[in-house]
């Protein structure tokens, strides 16, 4: 099927929603960083956005079956990059998660995200499974587990956590029996106290702080409290462009990365926050619609992998901003400052657009 005919089936709603979310993100980054030490963020994000859109369109144009065929290559390359990062990476905030080529710095873990989704979909798309056998289960664990292990070595727990929704989505759509699901849930509940013992002190601190933010208002509870103040003081209509005091005056740390949504809520108020939430809803809804409309299993798992990763990150990030989840350090896809994350998210969205465009069997 020629590419120009497929364009008739292009999902314009999803595409425009993505562009809208990115634009909103740019505006908020501009407002949150003007006059602060991070003032260059807007221009860098702009360049990454253009690069990301090119990558996204590339991912749309090449038939997803072709991409899936080469998935082991992409997957292998990402693992290699992750290994290189462990050796040559730059240390930022105590974790070695950046790799530099010349002046450009990027996070291989973000690339690994997309290639893992592709690899997983390629595997599950080839198999015809009814229920989920032990072999499949093990394979899913291995495909996701390898990059996750390497990322946790950096250590970058936040990024590692974003693979969890992907895993859950793959297992659930892959056909796990409801009975097995219930048993797994029980085991997980019982294992939780044991996992607590393996957390690092700062991670325990974050969870404790989440449960009781006023415990240490100057220390680890500070971000949480400042985020709530930013959101709450925005009111119905917000303080206006460039007028958010929490972000502008740097009371809110990470104002243009992990807490970009708090700045948005402060400057644009409840109305703005709802419109942004609406955008995310549209994007998630269109991705799920793509999964339902996909013409084969590969398409289903690609769309599901992307949407689970995307929605998982988005909901986790916003949950932190409104104080419903502990601080994790997960960026808000499409809006947070961060080139690698933006590019990898756009790449993933390209795959979904690809599946939608080729949903009809001719």
């Amino acid at each position, binding site marked *: 099927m020629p590419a120009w005919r497929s364009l008739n089936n292009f999902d314009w709603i999803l595409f425009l929603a993505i562009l809208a979310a990115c634009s909103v993100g740019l505006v908020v980054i501009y407002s949150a960083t003007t006059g602060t030490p991070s003032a260059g963020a807007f221009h860098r994000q702009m360049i990454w956005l253009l690069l990301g859109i090119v990558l996204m369109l590339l991912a749309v144009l090449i038939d997803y079956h072709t991409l899936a065929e080469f998935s082991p290559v992409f997957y292998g390359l990402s693992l290699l990059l992750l290994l290189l990062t462990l050796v040559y990476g730059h240390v930022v905030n105590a974790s070695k998660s950046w790799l530099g080529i010349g002046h450009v710095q990027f996070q291989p873990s973000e690339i690994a995200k997309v290639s893992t989704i592709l690899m997983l979909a390629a595997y599950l798309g080839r198999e015809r499974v009814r229920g989920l056998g032990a072999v499949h289960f093990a394979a899913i664990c291995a495909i996701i587990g390898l990059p996750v292990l390497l990322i946790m070595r950096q250590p970058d727990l936040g990024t590692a956590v974003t693979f969890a929704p992907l895993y859950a989505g793959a297992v659930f759509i892959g056909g796990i029996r409801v009975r097995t699901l219930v048993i797994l849930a029980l085991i997980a509940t019982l294992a939780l106290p044991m996992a607590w013992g393996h957390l690092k002190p700062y991670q325990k601190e974050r969870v404790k702080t989440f449960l009781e933010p006023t415990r240490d208002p100057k220390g680890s509870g500070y971000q949480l409290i400042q985020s709530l103040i930013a959101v709450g003081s*925005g009111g119905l209509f917000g303080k206006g462009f460039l007028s958010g005091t929490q972000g502008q005056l740097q009371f809110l740390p990470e104002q243009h990365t992990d807490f970009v949504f708090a700045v948005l809520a402060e400057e644009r108020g409840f109305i703005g926050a709802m419109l942004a939430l609406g955008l995310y809803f549209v994007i998630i809804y269109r991705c799920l619609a793509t999964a339902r409309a996909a013409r084969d299993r590969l398409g289903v798992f690609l769309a599901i992998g992307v949407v689970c990763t995307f929605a998982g990150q988005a909901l986790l990030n916003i949950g932190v901003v409104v104080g419903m989840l502990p601080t994790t350090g997960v960026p808000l896809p499409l809006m947070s400052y961060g080139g690698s994350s933006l590019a990898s998210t756009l790449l993933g969205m390209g795959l979904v657009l690809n599946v939608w465009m080729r949903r009809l069997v001719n």
Partner: protein
Amino acid sequence: MAFEQDYKGFQDYYEARRLNTRIQVIQVLFAAVLVLYLFAFWYLQVVKVDYYKRLSDNNRLRRVTLMPLRGVIADDEHRVLANNRIAFNIRLDREKVADMKAFFPRLAGILGVPEKTLNERLARYRGRPAFEPVILKEDVDLAEAAYIESRRLELPMLSVEVESRRNYLYGALAAHALGYVGEASEDQIKSDPSGEFELGEIVGKAGVEKQYDADLKGVKGWKQVVVNSLGREIQEIEEGRKPNPGRAMRLSIDLDLQRALEEAYGDEAGSAVFLDPNSGAVLAMISRPAYDPNVFAHRFSQDTWEGLVSDPRHPLQDRVSLSKFAPGSVFKVVMSIAALEENVATPARGDHCTGLWRFGDKVFQCWAVRKGGHGYLTMREAIIQSCNIYFYHLGNDMGIDRISKWAKLLGFGEQTKLDLPYEEAGTVPDPEWKRRAVPRDPFWHPGETISVSIGQGALEVTPIQMARFAAAIGNGGTLYRPHLLLSHEVREGVEEEERQDYVERRVPLSPRTIEVIKDAMWGVVNEDGTGGRAKIAGRDICAKTGTAQVFRASRDIDADKLPKDKRDHAWFVGFAPKDDPRIAWAVFVQNGGHGGTTAAPIARAVLERFFQKLDVREGGQQLASVAVPQ
């Protein structure tokens, strides 16, 4: 594409349906979380908006108090005694120093302050926000301020702060009248009803500075500033109020007289106060030992302060209104007035002094006992010679009730209401007082009346009471409230005289009594009496000397050979000129020995200066009035 056949289509309708169902489950799950978030935003941004708005404002808005300039204090001729000057403090920005321990030795070298002192000063700020600068060195000179300011690149953590500081132009001059200022104490802040005091605010602590603090301190202003998370000022908000400077104040003190007094007083301890007998205005006052009020303006004056407080000579105590002593022979004037007014004696009453008088089982002496007594004396001669025997007998005839009645009428045993923060009332003893004050021995003994008759015993007076008493004799019986405030500024540059009625009361004295007393007091100075050293030809100075006993010397010991702290206190109290008095005073010298020897010359020095100025002023007036008819 060729790869499509590698991937499986859906096995059957059931598989497609099952996938569909599970995708819908995910969809519902995500939608539910989004709705949950919707409610979270609603709760934070609509329900709790006021709460978070307030927290946000607390975060970013800081109210900065703007301190007004303190009112200037001037003397009666508008010569400034206390004003404000610019002071430079060197401050340290703790946020800009990575390693305080490594930096301090270098800093100690730059500032010339020992490391230990710097550490102490830094320790005062423990627990304060890190952005708050630490004052490391106070009140440096312009050269040092410029040195630090010009090295901002090298030493970005140091800055120079400019503040206004109280400045007493003449140091210790009139220190007890002016008082001093200092940071408001925690008690002061707590007990202030208006709740307007702030930590570190400068308030009057003593003297006029304390008495008129409300006028002098002015009205604080404030501004609202936006700060960032580091506490730095980002911008100033329009809202706010400018501070109103304090009102300038003119005192009745005359700088020339005050200087003459300070010079004449020398190193003695004690006090002196000079009044205008026709208004009660204080023309000069001194209390020694004194202190330099400028030292209190420093933050790091703890050592100086403790030194002054623990000094056994009590330099902080205002001896004009707070020290009370026996009036000694000065009280003989009170005795004479009482006897004349109560018709116990006439001026012609005669008595014979042999130097000794046996009363009951006690022997009372006259100071002239060694030369065999004064012989025969009338009242006038008894005052001039300050004969004890004469007044023992007079007191015995009069009785304690009439003595204490007249002492109280003449202003003793009560506060004079001088406009300074604290004042002692002194004691005028009588049987009623003794019953209350001495439960151990509640009965009045006749011998005590005899002691009181020559100004000893339980009698206690303050120098300001003495000066007011002298003024009342001079002006014919009016007791004025002594005061330091002459006028104060009502608007900027507009001054208003205090038009208070300073008359406390008029003592009913017959002109005859006043004539007799004035004449006797004139004789004390001008007729070879005990106060001859204060004589100034043509000025008709009237006074009475007094000696308050410290140590009951036996008749064999020469009083002048006693150690200094065992010697008697000296009084010299009077007014001048005799007719139409223009000045009245009380000079008190602690351990000064005899009043005529040490206290009289001090009064004389001030009086000379006073009359010199008076002549210039009135001479000028006469010249002017002569010039008019032309």
